[in-house]
Protein backbone atom coordinates (compact mmCIF):
# COMPACT_ATOMS: atom_id res chain seq x y z
CA UNK A 1 0.00 0.00 0.00
CA UNK A 2 2.62 2.51 1.10
CA UNK A 3 4.97 1.21 -1.60
CA UNK A 4 2.47 1.98 -4.35
CA UNK A 5 1.51 5.33 -2.77
CA UNK A 6 5.20 6.19 -2.58
CA UNK A 7 5.74 5.24 -6.25
CA UNK A 8 2.76 7.36 -7.34
CA UNK A 9 3.48 10.30 -5.02
CA UNK A 10 0.20 10.11 -3.08
CA UNK A 11 -0.42 11.73 0.32
CA UNK A 12 -3.28 10.18 2.24
CA UNK A 13 -5.84 12.29 4.18
CA UNK A 14 -5.44 12.65 7.93
CA UNK A 15 -8.47 10.51 8.72
CA UNK A 16 -6.99 7.65 6.69
CA UNK A 17 -3.74 7.98 8.63
CA UNK A 18 -5.58 7.78 11.95
CA UNK A 19 -7.69 4.82 10.88
CA UNK A 20 -4.58 2.97 9.68
CA UNK A 21 -2.88 3.74 13.00
CA UNK A 22 -5.90 2.41 14.88
CA UNK A 23 -6.17 -0.78 12.82
CA UNK A 24 -2.46 -1.46 13.22
CA UNK A 25 -2.50 -0.42 16.88
CA UNK A 26 -5.30 -2.70 18.03
CA UNK A 27 -3.69 -5.47 16.01
CA UNK A 28 -0.44 -5.01 17.98
CA UNK A 29 -2.33 -5.12 21.28
CA UNK A 30 -4.39 -8.20 20.40
CA UNK A 31 -1.53 -9.99 18.70
CA UNK A 32 0.99 -9.44 21.49
CA UNK A 33 -1.43 -10.57 24.20
CA UNK A 34 -2.33 -13.67 22.19
CA UNK A 35 1.34 -14.32 21.63
CA UNK A 36 2.13 -14.02 25.33
CA UNK A 37 -0.71 -16.14 26.70
CA UNK A 38 -1.54 -18.51 23.90
CA UNK A 39 1.69 -19.01 21.99
CA UNK A 40 4.56 -18.29 24.38
CA UNK A 41 3.38 -18.67 27.99
CA UNK A 42 3.18 -22.44 27.84
CA UNK A 43 6.95 -22.51 27.35
CA UNK A 44 7.14 -21.09 30.90
CA UNK A 45 3.86 -22.09 32.55
CA UNK A 46 3.14 -25.73 33.46
CA UNK A 47 -0.58 -26.16 33.05
CA UNK A 48 -0.73 -29.53 34.82
CA UNK A 49 1.15 -28.19 37.86
CA UNK A 50 -1.70 -25.70 38.34
CA UNK A 51 -3.78 -28.60 39.66
CA UNK A 52 -1.59 -28.67 42.78
CA UNK A 53 -2.14 -24.99 43.54
CA UNK A 54 -3.88 -23.75 46.66
CA UNK A 55 -6.62 -21.40 45.34
CA UNK A 56 -6.36 -19.26 48.47
CA UNK A 57 -2.64 -18.72 48.02
CA UNK A 58 -3.25 -18.09 44.30
CA UNK A 59 -5.73 -15.36 45.22
CA UNK A 60 -3.19 -13.83 47.60
CA UNK A 61 -0.54 -13.89 44.87
CA UNK A 62 -2.88 -12.33 42.29
CA UNK A 63 -4.01 -9.60 44.69
CA UNK A 64 -0.41 -8.80 45.60
CA UNK A 65 0.49 -7.93 42.00
CA UNK A 66 -2.68 -6.30 40.66
CA UNK A 67 -6.07 -4.89 41.58
CA UNK A 68 -7.71 -6.80 38.71
CA UNK A 69 -11.12 -7.80 40.10
CA UNK A 70 -11.12 -11.48 39.08
CA UNK A 71 -8.81 -12.65 41.85
CA UNK A 72 -10.84 -14.30 44.61
CA UNK A 73 -10.20 -17.73 46.09
CA UNK A 74 -13.52 -18.94 44.67
CA UNK A 75 -12.62 -17.69 41.22
CA UNK A 76 -9.34 -19.59 41.12
CA UNK A 77 -10.99 -22.67 42.65
CA UNK A 78 -13.48 -22.58 39.76
CA UNK A 79 -10.71 -22.34 37.16
CA UNK A 80 -8.90 -25.21 38.83
CA UNK A 81 -12.02 -27.43 38.78
CA UNK A 82 -12.52 -26.72 35.11
CA UNK A 83 -8.90 -27.66 34.43
CA UNK A 84 -9.20 -30.77 36.60
CA UNK A 85 -12.20 -31.93 34.61
CA UNK A 86 -10.12 -31.57 31.41
CA UNK A 87 -7.18 -33.54 32.75
CA UNK A 88 -9.28 -36.30 34.35
CA UNK A 89 -11.16 -36.82 31.11
CA UNK A 90 -7.78 -37.22 29.39
CA UNK A 91 -8.82 -34.33 27.16
CA UNK A 92 -6.26 -31.60 27.53
CA UNK A 93 -7.61 -30.12 24.34
CA UNK A 94 -5.91 -26.77 23.78
CA UNK A 95 -3.33 -27.73 26.40
CA UNK A 96 -2.27 -31.00 24.78
CA UNK A 97 1.17 -31.58 23.23
CA UNK A 98 3.55 -29.95 25.66
CA UNK A 99 6.29 -30.99 28.02
CA UNK A 100 4.34 -30.83 31.28
CA UNK A 101 6.45 -31.78 34.26
CA UNK A 102 9.72 -30.83 32.52
CA UNK A 103 12.28 -29.72 35.14
CA UNK A 104 12.84 -26.45 33.25
CA UNK A 105 9.41 -25.27 34.43
CA UNK A 106 10.14 -23.22 37.52
CA UNK A 107 6.90 -21.50 38.53
CA UNK A 108 5.18 -22.51 41.78
CA UNK A 109 1.76 -24.15 41.27
CA UNK A 110 -0.04 -20.95 42.34
CA UNK A 111 1.65 -18.86 39.62
CA UNK A 112 0.78 -21.58 37.12
CA UNK A 113 -2.87 -21.50 38.15
CA UNK A 114 -2.99 -17.71 37.91
CA UNK A 115 -1.52 -17.87 34.41
CA UNK A 116 -4.03 -20.55 33.34
CA UNK A 117 -6.89 -18.34 34.53
CA UNK A 118 -5.54 -15.41 32.54
CA UNK A 119 -4.92 -17.59 29.50
CA UNK A 120 -8.65 -18.31 29.47
CA UNK A 121 -9.64 -14.70 30.19
CA UNK A 122 -7.41 -13.47 27.38
CA UNK A 123 -9.29 -15.67 24.91
CA UNK A 124 -12.54 -13.82 25.66
CA UNK A 125 -10.88 -10.42 25.90
CA UNK A 126 -9.14 -10.60 22.52
CA UNK A 127 -12.36 -11.54 20.74
CA UNK A 128 -13.95 -8.40 22.10
CA UNK A 129 -11.25 -5.75 21.69
CA UNK A 130 -10.42 -6.69 18.09
CA UNK A 131 -13.86 -5.37 17.16
CA UNK A 132 -12.08 -2.04 16.66
CA UNK A 133 -10.32 -3.68 13.72
CA UNK A 134 -13.60 -5.11 12.44
CA UNK A 135 -15.40 -1.77 12.69
CA UNK A 136 -12.67 0.11 10.82
CA UNK A 137 -11.58 -2.68 8.48
CA UNK A 138 -14.92 -4.43 7.90
CA UNK A 139 -13.54 -7.65 9.36
CA UNK A 140 -10.59 -9.26 11.06
CA UNK A 141 -8.19 -10.55 9.91
CA UNK A 142 -7.64 -9.17 6.39
CA UNK A 143 -9.09 -5.70 6.62
CA UNK A 144 -11.07 -4.89 3.50
CA UNK A 145 -11.12 -1.12 3.66
CA UNK A 146 -7.60 -0.28 2.46
CA UNK A 147 -7.42 1.70 -0.75
CA UNK A 148 -4.45 3.23 -2.56
CA UNK A 149 -4.76 6.91 -1.63
CA UNK A 150 -6.44 6.40 1.73
CA UNK A 151 -9.18 4.20 3.11
CA UNK A 152 -12.64 3.08 2.03
CA UNK A 153 -14.08 3.35 5.53
CA UNK A 154 -17.12 5.59 5.21
CA UNK A 155 -17.36 8.52 7.62
CA UNK A 156 -20.75 10.14 8.01
CA UNK A 157 -22.02 11.48 11.33
CA UNK A 158 -25.58 11.27 9.98
CA UNK A 159 -25.50 7.65 8.85
CA UNK A 160 -26.07 4.51 10.85
CA UNK A 161 -23.92 2.63 8.36
CA UNK A 162 -20.78 4.74 8.55
CA UNK A 163 -18.35 5.90 11.21
CA UNK A 164 -20.34 8.19 13.47
CA UNK A 165 -20.40 9.38 17.07
CA UNK A 166 -21.90 6.08 18.20
CA UNK A 167 -19.25 3.86 16.65
CA UNK A 168 -16.50 6.18 17.91
CA UNK A 169 -17.85 5.95 21.46
CA UNK A 170 -18.07 2.18 21.13
CA UNK A 171 -14.45 2.00 20.02
CA UNK A 172 -13.36 4.24 22.91
CA UNK A 173 -14.98 1.77 25.28
CA UNK A 174 -13.18 -1.15 23.62
CA UNK A 175 -9.88 0.75 23.73
CA UNK A 176 -10.31 1.29 27.48
CA UNK A 177 -10.99 -2.39 27.92
CA UNK A 178 -7.88 -3.22 25.89
CA UNK A 179 -5.67 -0.96 27.97
CA UNK A 180 -7.06 -2.11 31.30
CA UNK A 181 -6.29 -5.77 30.63
CA UNK A 182 -2.76 -4.94 29.49
CA UNK A 183 -2.12 -2.79 32.57
CA UNK A 184 -3.74 -5.04 35.15
CA UNK A 185 -3.21 -8.54 33.82
CA UNK A 186 -0.59 -8.83 31.05
CA UNK A 187 2.14 -6.61 32.54
CA UNK A 188 1.81 -7.94 36.13
CA UNK A 189 1.84 -11.53 34.82
CA UNK A 190 4.83 -10.83 32.61
CA UNK A 191 6.77 -9.45 35.59
CA UNK A 192 5.67 -12.29 37.88
CA UNK A 193 6.64 -15.00 35.40
CA UNK A 194 9.89 -13.28 34.40
CA UNK A 195 10.99 -13.02 38.03
CA UNK A 196 11.25 -16.84 38.13
CA UNK A 197 13.22 -17.04 34.90
CA UNK A 198 15.86 -14.33 35.23
CA UNK A 199 18.58 -16.63 33.91
CA UNK A 200 16.88 -16.24 30.52
CA UNK A 201 18.26 -12.72 30.45
CA UNK A 202 21.53 -14.51 29.73
CA UNK A 203 20.34 -16.63 26.79
CA UNK A 204 19.03 -15.96 23.32
CA UNK A 205 20.93 -12.80 22.47
CA UNK A 206 21.05 -13.20 18.71
CA UNK A 207 22.90 -10.95 16.28
CA UNK A 208 22.89 -7.78 18.41
CA UNK A 209 21.87 -5.56 15.46
CA UNK A 210 18.35 -4.14 15.42
CA UNK A 211 16.31 -2.59 12.63
CA UNK A 212 13.05 -0.67 13.04
CA UNK A 213 11.30 1.13 10.16
CA UNK A 214 9.12 2.84 12.74
CA UNK A 215 5.34 3.05 12.75
CA UNK A 216 2.29 5.14 13.54
CA UNK A 217 2.81 8.37 11.56
CA UNK A 218 2.15 11.54 13.53
CA UNK A 219 1.44 13.34 10.27
CA UNK A 220 0.05 12.26 6.93
CA UNK A 221 3.17 12.58 4.79
CA UNK A 222 4.05 9.30 3.13
CA UNK A 223 7.29 7.61 4.26
CA UNK A 224 7.44 10.13 7.03
CA UNK A 225 10.17 10.41 9.62
CA UNK A 226 7.66 11.75 12.13
CA UNK A 227 6.59 8.51 13.73
CA UNK A 228 5.19 7.66 17.15
CA UNK A 229 7.57 4.66 17.31
CA UNK A 230 10.74 5.93 15.70
CA UNK A 231 12.75 4.58 12.81
CA UNK A 232 16.36 3.61 13.29
CA UNK A 233 19.13 1.08 13.60
CA UNK A 234 21.16 -0.09 16.58
CA UNK A 235 24.43 -1.85 15.74
CA UNK A 236 26.36 -4.14 18.03
CA UNK A 237 24.06 -3.53 21.04
CA UNK A 238 25.33 0.07 21.24
CA UNK A 239 22.39 2.05 22.64
CA UNK A 240 24.37 5.30 22.59
CA UNK A 241 23.85 5.66 18.85
CA UNK A 242 20.78 5.38 16.59
CA UNK A 243 21.71 5.17 12.92
CA UNK A 244 19.35 6.32 10.14
CA UNK A 245 17.80 3.63 7.92
CA UNK A 246 18.94 3.94 4.30
CA UNK A 247 16.80 1.80 2.05
CA UNK A 248 19.54 1.36 -0.55
CA UNK A 249 21.59 -0.60 2.01
CA UNK A 250 19.03 -3.41 2.13
CA UNK A 251 19.83 -6.44 0.01
CA UNK A 252 19.09 -10.15 -0.02
CA UNK A 253 21.39 -13.12 -0.50
CA UNK A 254 20.27 -16.49 -1.83
CA UNK A 255 23.55 -18.31 -1.13
CA UNK A 256 21.77 -20.77 1.18
CA UNK A 257 18.27 -20.29 -0.20
CA UNK A 258 16.48 -22.27 -2.91
CA UNK A 259 16.65 -19.45 -5.46
CA UNK A 260 18.91 -18.45 -8.31
CA UNK A 261 20.17 -15.00 -9.23
CA UNK A 262 21.42 -14.17 -12.74
CA UNK A 263 24.70 -13.05 -11.14
CA UNK A 264 25.13 -16.20 -9.03
CA UNK A 265 25.15 -16.97 -5.33
CA UNK A 266 27.88 -14.58 -4.23
CA UNK A 267 25.90 -11.35 -4.66
CA UNK A 268 23.13 -9.69 -2.69
CA UNK A 269 20.39 -7.92 -4.63
CA UNK A 270 18.47 -4.80 -3.65
CA UNK A 271 14.70 -5.50 -3.69
CA UNK A 272 14.06 -3.20 -6.67
CA UNK A 273 16.40 -5.49 -8.63
CA UNK A 274 15.24 -8.58 -6.75
CA UNK A 275 14.56 -11.89 -8.49
CA UNK A 276 12.30 -14.71 -7.36
CA UNK A 277 13.65 -17.57 -9.46
CA UNK A 278 12.96 -20.59 -7.33
CA UNK A 279 14.97 -23.78 -7.69
CA UNK A 280 14.63 -26.43 -5.04
CA UNK A 281 17.84 -28.43 -4.63
CA UNK A 282 17.17 -29.92 -1.20
CA UNK A 283 16.51 -33.56 -0.40
CA UNK A 284 13.33 -35.29 -1.46
CA UNK A 285 10.93 -35.57 1.49
CA UNK A 286 10.75 -37.39 3.76
CA UNK A 287 14.34 -36.68 4.76
CA UNK A 288 16.25 -36.70 8.02
CA UNK A 289 18.42 -33.66 7.63
CA UNK A 290 19.05 -30.85 5.24
CA UNK A 291 22.53 -30.34 3.86
CA UNK A 292 23.10 -27.00 5.56
CA UNK A 293 26.46 -26.53 3.84
CA UNK A 294 24.42 -25.90 0.70
CA UNK A 295 21.01 -24.31 0.16
CA UNK A 296 18.61 -25.17 2.95
CA UNK A 297 15.74 -22.69 3.18
CA UNK A 298 12.98 -21.00 1.20
CA UNK A 299 13.84 -17.80 3.03
CA UNK A 300 16.28 -15.42 1.42
CA UNK A 301 18.88 -13.83 3.67
CA UNK A 302 18.21 -10.08 4.00
CA UNK A 303 21.11 -8.00 5.17
CA UNK A 304 21.53 -4.31 6.01
CA UNK A 305 24.87 -3.01 4.85
CA UNK A 306 25.92 -6.65 4.81
CA UNK A 307 24.84 -7.36 8.40
CA UNK A 308 22.08 -9.60 9.75
CA UNK A 309 19.45 -7.63 11.69
CA UNK A 310 16.84 -8.55 14.27
CA UNK A 311 13.40 -6.98 13.80
CA UNK A 312 10.31 -6.94 16.03
CA UNK A 313 9.18 -5.48 19.34
CA UNK A 314 12.67 -5.66 20.88
CA UNK A 315 14.18 -3.80 17.92
CA UNK A 316 11.41 -1.17 18.08
CA UNK A 317 11.72 -0.68 21.83
CA UNK A 318 15.53 -0.45 21.69
CA UNK A 319 15.39 2.14 18.89
CA UNK A 320 12.68 4.08 20.78
CA UNK A 321 14.66 3.84 24.02
CA UNK A 322 17.89 4.98 22.42
CA UNK A 323 16.01 7.78 20.57
CA UNK A 324 14.72 9.13 23.89
CA UNK A 325 11.06 8.07 23.63
CA UNK A 326 9.81 9.19 27.04
CA UNK A 327 7.15 6.58 27.74
CA UNK A 328 9.25 3.71 26.41
CA UNK A 329 12.17 4.78 28.63
CA UNK A 330 9.91 4.97 31.69
CA UNK A 331 8.51 1.51 31.10
CA UNK A 332 11.87 -0.07 30.27
CA UNK A 333 13.29 1.34 33.52
CA UNK A 334 10.23 0.15 35.44
CA UNK A 335 10.50 -3.41 34.10
CA UNK A 336 14.28 -3.62 34.59
CA UNK A 337 13.90 -2.19 38.10
CA UNK A 338 11.16 -4.62 39.10
CA UNK A 339 13.21 -7.54 37.85
CA UNK A 340 16.40 -6.17 39.37
CA UNK A 341 18.39 -6.56 36.16
CA UNK A 342 20.48 -4.13 34.12
CA UNK A 343 19.95 -2.87 30.56
CA UNK A 344 22.17 -5.69 29.19
CA UNK A 345 19.28 -8.03 30.11
CA UNK A 346 17.35 -6.56 27.17
CA UNK A 347 19.52 -8.42 24.67
CA UNK A 348 18.06 -11.83 25.40
CA UNK A 349 15.10 -14.18 25.20
CA UNK A 350 13.69 -12.56 28.34
CA UNK A 351 14.34 -9.07 26.96
CA UNK A 352 12.52 -9.89 23.74
CA UNK A 353 9.49 -11.11 25.65
CA UNK A 354 9.54 -8.13 28.02
CA UNK A 355 9.89 -5.65 25.12
CA UNK A 356 6.71 -7.07 23.58
CA UNK A 357 4.83 -6.36 26.80
CA UNK A 358 6.21 -2.83 27.10
CA UNK A 359 5.24 -2.09 23.52
CA UNK A 360 1.73 -3.42 24.07
CA UNK A 361 1.16 -0.97 26.90
CA UNK A 362 2.69 1.97 25.00
CA UNK A 363 0.42 1.31 22.00
CA UNK A 364 -2.67 0.53 24.10
CA UNK A 365 -2.26 3.93 25.79
CA UNK A 366 -2.14 5.59 22.38
CA UNK A 367 -5.36 4.11 20.95
CA UNK A 368 -7.67 6.53 22.81
CA UNK A 369 -5.50 9.43 21.61
CA UNK A 370 -5.91 8.52 17.93
CA UNK A 371 -9.61 7.90 18.43
CA UNK A 372 -9.90 11.36 19.98
CA UNK A 373 -8.07 12.96 17.05
CA UNK A 374 -10.36 11.19 14.60
CA UNK A 375 -13.42 12.41 16.51
CA UNK A 376 -12.03 15.97 16.53
CA UNK A 377 -11.50 15.91 12.76
CA UNK A 378 -15.07 14.72 12.21
CA UNK A 379 -16.46 17.37 14.58
CA UNK A 380 -14.64 20.00 12.58
CA UNK A 381 -16.36 18.69 9.44
CA UNK A 382 -13.28 17.00 7.99
CA UNK A 383 -14.72 13.80 6.53
CA UNK A 384 -12.00 13.21 3.91
CA UNK A 385 -10.83 9.62 3.82
CA UNK A 386 -9.35 9.17 0.34
CA UNK A 387 -7.25 11.11 -2.14
CA UNK A 388 -8.45 10.01 -5.57
CA UNK A 389 -6.39 12.52 -7.56
CA UNK A 390 -3.99 9.78 -8.69
CA UNK A 391 -6.42 6.90 -8.84
CA UNK A 392 -6.62 6.79 -12.64
CA UNK A 393 -3.59 5.10 -14.27
CA UNK A 394 -3.67 7.69 -17.07
CA UNK A 395 -2.39 10.18 -14.51
CA UNK A 396 0.59 8.01 -13.59
CA UNK A 397 4.08 8.31 -15.02
CA UNK A 398 4.90 5.64 -17.59
CA UNK A 399 7.42 4.16 -15.20
CA UNK A 400 7.57 4.49 -11.44
CA UNK A 401 9.18 2.79 -8.51
CA UNK A 402 8.54 3.03 -4.81
CA UNK A 403 8.95 1.37 -1.48
CA UNK A 404 6.69 1.19 1.54
CA UNK A 405 7.60 0.33 5.10
CA UNK A 406 5.40 -0.88 7.87
CA UNK A 407 6.02 -2.29 11.31
CA UNK A 408 3.93 -5.41 11.57
CA UNK A 409 3.52 -6.77 15.11
CA UNK A 410 6.40 -9.15 14.38
CA UNK A 411 8.71 -6.54 12.93
CA UNK A 412 9.92 -4.49 10.01
CA UNK A 413 8.08 -5.21 6.77
CA UNK A 414 9.16 -3.64 3.50
CA UNK A 415 7.67 -3.80 0.02
CA UNK A 416 9.48 -2.58 -3.07
CA UNK A 417 7.56 -2.07 -6.30
CA UNK A 418 8.29 -1.13 -9.92
CA UNK A 419 5.43 -0.06 -12.12
CA UNK A 420 5.45 0.23 -15.92
CA UNK A 421 2.50 1.13 -18.16
CA UNK A 422 0.12 0.81 -15.25
CA UNK A 423 1.21 -2.72 -14.29
CA UNK A 424 3.55 -4.21 -11.72
CA UNK A 425 6.81 -5.33 -13.31
CA UNK A 426 8.61 -6.23 -10.11
CA UNK A 427 7.46 -6.57 -6.52
CA UNK A 428 9.58 -7.78 -3.63
CA UNK A 429 8.47 -8.25 -0.04
CA UNK A 430 11.10 -8.41 2.69
CA UNK A 431 9.07 -9.54 5.68
CA UNK A 432 9.88 -9.65 9.42
CA UNK A 433 10.40 -13.38 9.61
CA UNK A 434 12.73 -13.31 6.63
CA UNK A 435 14.97 -11.00 8.65
CA UNK A 436 14.67 -13.02 11.87
CA UNK A 437 14.49 -16.49 10.36
CA UNK A 438 17.12 -15.84 7.72
CA UNK A 439 19.55 -18.60 6.78
CA UNK A 440 23.26 -17.95 6.45
CA UNK A 441 24.54 -15.50 3.80
CA UNK A 442 27.50 -15.61 1.42
CA UNK A 443 29.87 -14.84 4.30
CA UNK A 444 28.39 -17.62 6.42
CA UNK A 445 26.86 -15.15 8.90
CA UNK A 446 23.97 -16.67 10.88
CA UNK A 447 20.48 -15.17 10.92
CA UNK A 448 18.91 -13.99 14.22
CA UNK A 449 17.13 -17.27 15.12
CA UNK A 450 20.28 -19.23 14.37
CA UNK A 451 22.50 -16.90 16.37
CA UNK A 452 20.06 -16.67 19.29
CA UNK A 453 20.06 -20.42 19.79
CA UNK A 454 23.82 -20.63 20.33
CA UNK A 455 24.51 -21.51 23.95
CA UNK A 456 20.87 -22.22 24.76
CA UNK A 457 20.79 -24.94 27.42
CA UNK A 458 19.02 -28.17 26.46
CA UNK A 459 18.46 -30.31 29.52
CA UNK A 460 16.64 -33.08 27.71
CA UNK A 461 17.20 -33.27 23.95
CA UNK A 462 13.99 -35.25 23.61
CA UNK A 463 12.06 -32.36 25.11
CA UNK A 464 13.87 -29.20 24.02
CA UNK A 465 11.52 -26.73 25.66
CA UNK A 466 14.45 -24.31 26.00
CA UNK A 467 14.82 -24.07 22.20
CA UNK A 468 11.12 -23.29 21.95
CA UNK A 469 11.49 -20.49 24.49
CA UNK A 470 14.03 -18.67 22.35
CA UNK A 471 12.38 -19.34 19.01
CA UNK A 472 8.94 -18.37 20.33
CA UNK A 473 10.36 -15.19 21.84
CA UNK A 474 10.65 -13.95 18.24
CA UNK A 475 6.96 -14.71 17.68
CA UNK A 476 7.27 -16.81 14.54
CA UNK A 477 3.63 -17.83 14.82
CA UNK A 478 3.84 -20.98 12.76
CA UNK A 479 4.23 -24.69 12.95
CA UNK A 480 7.88 -25.45 13.22
CA UNK A 481 9.68 -28.74 13.05
CA UNK A 482 12.57 -28.77 15.48
CA UNK A 483 15.33 -31.29 15.06
CA UNK A 484 17.95 -31.89 17.68
CA UNK A 485 21.26 -33.45 16.75
CA UNK A 486 23.96 -34.65 19.08
CA UNK A 487 27.53 -33.66 18.31
CA UNK A 488 27.97 -36.69 16.05
CA UNK A 489 24.97 -35.63 14.04
CA UNK A 490 22.71 -38.42 15.23
CA UNK A 491 19.11 -37.43 15.41
CA UNK A 492 17.60 -37.45 18.87
CA UNK A 493 14.09 -36.70 18.06
CA UNK A 494 11.77 -34.93 15.72
CA UNK A 495 9.34 -32.55 17.32
CA UNK A 496 6.38 -30.74 15.94
CA UNK A 497 6.09 -27.43 17.67
CA UNK A 498 2.54 -26.36 18.22
Amino acid at each position, binding site marked *: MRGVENALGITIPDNARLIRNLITGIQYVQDHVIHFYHLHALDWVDIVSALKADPKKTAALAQSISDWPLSSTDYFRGVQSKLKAFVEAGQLGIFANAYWGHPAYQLPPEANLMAVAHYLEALDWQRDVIKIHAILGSKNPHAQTYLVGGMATAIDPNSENALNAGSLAHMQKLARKAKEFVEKVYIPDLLAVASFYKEWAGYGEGVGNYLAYGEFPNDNISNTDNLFLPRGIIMGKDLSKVHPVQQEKIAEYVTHSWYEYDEGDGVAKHPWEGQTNYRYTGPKPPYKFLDTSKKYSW*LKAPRYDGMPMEVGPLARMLVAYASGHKRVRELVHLVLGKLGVGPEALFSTLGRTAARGIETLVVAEQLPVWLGQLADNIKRGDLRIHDSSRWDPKDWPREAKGYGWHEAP*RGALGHWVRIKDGKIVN*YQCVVPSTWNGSPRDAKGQR*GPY*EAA*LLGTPVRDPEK*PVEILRTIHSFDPCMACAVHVLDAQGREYVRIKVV
Partner: protein
Amino acid sequence: MPKIAIDPITRIEGHLRIEAQVEGGKVRDAWAAGTMFRGIEKILIGRDPRDAWAFTQRI
Protein backbone atom coordinates in the same frame (compact mmCIF):
# COMPACT_ATOMS: atom_id res chain seq x y z
CA MET B 1 7.17 -19.05 6.99
CA PRO B 2 8.63 -16.08 5.51
CA LYS B 3 9.09 -16.85 2.08
CA ILE B 4 6.01 -18.32 2.88
CA ALA B 5 4.05 -17.97 5.48
CA ILE B 6 4.79 -15.89 8.21
CA ASP B 7 3.08 -12.69 7.83
CA PRO B 8 2.21 -10.85 10.88
CA ILE B 9 -0.61 -8.97 9.36
CA THR B 10 -2.49 -11.89 8.00
CA ARG B 11 -1.16 -14.66 10.19
CA ILE B 12 -0.94 -17.29 7.53
CA GLU B 13 0.46 -20.48 8.97
CA GLY B 14 3.82 -21.43 7.62
CA HIS B 15 6.55 -23.90 8.26
CA LEU B 16 9.79 -23.28 10.01
CA ARG B 17 12.39 -25.91 10.60
CA ILE B 18 15.21 -25.62 13.04
CA GLU B 19 18.16 -27.95 13.03
CA ALA B 20 20.28 -27.64 16.09
CA GLN B 21 23.49 -29.34 17.18
CA VAL B 22 23.62 -29.99 20.92
CA GLU B 23 26.77 -30.74 22.87
CA GLY B 24 27.30 -30.71 26.62
CA GLY B 25 23.70 -29.70 27.26
CA LYS B 26 23.94 -26.60 25.08
CA VAL B 27 23.15 -25.66 21.50
CA ARG B 28 26.42 -25.47 19.59
CA ASP B 29 25.07 -24.56 16.19
CA ALA B 30 21.68 -24.00 14.64
CA TRP B 31 20.06 -23.64 11.24
CA ALA B 32 16.68 -22.14 10.51
CA ALA B 33 14.89 -23.26 7.37
CA GLY B 34 11.66 -22.09 5.86
CA THR B 35 10.22 -25.17 4.21
CA MET B 36 7.52 -23.73 2.02
CA PHE B 37 7.70 -21.48 -1.02
CA ARG B 38 5.72 -18.25 -0.83
CA GLY B 39 5.73 -16.89 -4.36
CA ILE B 40 3.61 -13.81 -3.82
CA GLU B 41 6.14 -11.86 -5.91
CA LYS B 42 5.38 -14.11 -8.88
CA ILE B 43 1.64 -13.67 -8.41
CA LEU B 44 1.92 -9.88 -8.52
CA ILE B 45 3.77 -9.52 -11.82
CA GLY B 46 1.55 -7.91 -14.45
CA ARG B 47 -1.17 -6.93 -12.01
CA ASP B 48 -2.72 -3.57 -11.26
CA PRO B 49 -0.65 -1.86 -8.53
CA ARG B 50 -3.91 -0.75 -6.88
CA ASP B 51 -4.68 -4.39 -6.12
CA ALA B 52 -1.29 -5.31 -4.65
CA TRP B 53 -2.30 -4.70 -1.04
CA ALA B 54 -5.11 -7.23 -1.18
CA PHE B 55 -2.66 -9.94 -2.27
CA THR B 56 0.25 -9.06 -0.02
CA GLN B 57 -2.04 -8.68 2.99
CA ARG B 58 -2.37 -12.47 2.97
CA ILE B 59 1.27 -13.07 3.77
